[in-house]
């Protein structure tokens, strides 16, 4: 009780903040490209680019679920669930705005970058249909940044770190962090190509969009890296998965 006494002010502050947030919900949106914000030809372009990765993801998933790797299906579900959780957490950042992590690092390390394109689409569809976040027309573009570029960059970082004999947790942290961050760098690039600065061109627009998306994302990417390490530690220490399972 003494402890309670000591932190009473802090608790009161927390309670106030909480009720305030309930009374005035923030009208923030998911940090993907919004519905209708890309011209039709670009929407088609990103769908076409993403399609082969998605098909490859399905093939990988089929192989994994039909292999005799123990717990493969369970771990696939867990990786999908991890993306679900992390992309529902809209976190504040140093820029004074909010964004959310992507959660693709975990699945990338366990199954390789392919399967994330399938798991990620489930989350993107959920948010586009039920939450008006992201969109169906921009699904291809968002798929490309979050479930293709992010995991591929993360996987490259993971492989590089492991080849350099970096400790497992640190490699995983870097993988998840860069997967998250590169997603938003890609989003900024996608927007800058379509909406260049009237004076400065694509370069100037890219800097501006990077300032909005990528800078906000830095602390969140670090948080995502740490969370990924925690969950992976729990998975490994409970014998659910072995690091060498798919090698």
């Amino acid at each position, binding site marked *: 009780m003494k402890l309670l006494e000591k932190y009473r002010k802090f608790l009161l502050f927390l309670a106030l903040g909480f009720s305030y947030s309930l009374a005035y919900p*923030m009208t923030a949106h998911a940090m993907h490209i919004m519905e209708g914000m890309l011209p039709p030809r670009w929407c088609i372009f990103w769908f076409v680019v993403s399609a082969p990765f998605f098909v490859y993801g399905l093939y990988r998933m089929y192989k994994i679920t039909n292999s005799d790797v123990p717990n493969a299906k369970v771990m696939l579900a867990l990786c999908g669930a991890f993306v679900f959780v992390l992309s529902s957490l809209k976190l504040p950042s140093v820029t004074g705005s909010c964004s959310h992590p992507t959660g693709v690092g975990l699945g990338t390390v366990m199954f390789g970058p392919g399967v994330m394109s399938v798991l990620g689409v489930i989350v993107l569809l959920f948010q586009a249909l039920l939450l008006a976040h992201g969109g169906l027309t921009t699904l291809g573009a968002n798929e490309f940044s979050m479930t293709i570029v992010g995991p591929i960059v993360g996987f490259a970082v993971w492989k590089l770190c492991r080849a350099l004999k970096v400790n497992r947790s640190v490699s995983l942290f870097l993988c998840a962090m860069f997967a998250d961050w590169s997603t938003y760098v890609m989003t900024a690039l996608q927007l800058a190509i379509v909406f260049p600065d009237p004076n400065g061109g694509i370069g100037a627009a890219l800097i501006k969009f990077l300032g909005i998306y990528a800078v906000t994302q830095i602390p969140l990417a670090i948080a995502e890296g740490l969370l990924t390490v925690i969950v992976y530690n729990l998975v490994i220490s409970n014998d659910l998965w072995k690091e060498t399972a798919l090698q």
Partner: protein
Amino acid sequence: MKKRTKTNIILLICVILLVLLPFIFVKGEYGGSDDQGTEQIKKYAPNYQAWAHPVWTPPSGEIESLLFTVQGSIGTGIICYFIGAAHGKKKALEEKASKEASSK
């Protein structure tokens, strides 16, 4: 406490600090970064019209936060179930092994 548990707790504290620190040091509106993105698009291309609109929009902020919470809870439930089940299984196996060892 096991070393791994300790590491996990320290990591978790770091995550919480990362989330809380912006509130203490930065006074912002904490709107969505994609709203800023949309604003920036309007600056660059004032004539651009969004040509598609969300199929369904949550009727209010409350419903929206409900759905976000549902999304997060589904995921958390799945993760915790699998990890919890595996934890129990491992413990049971260990107990069985130690019993067999002591009975011999």
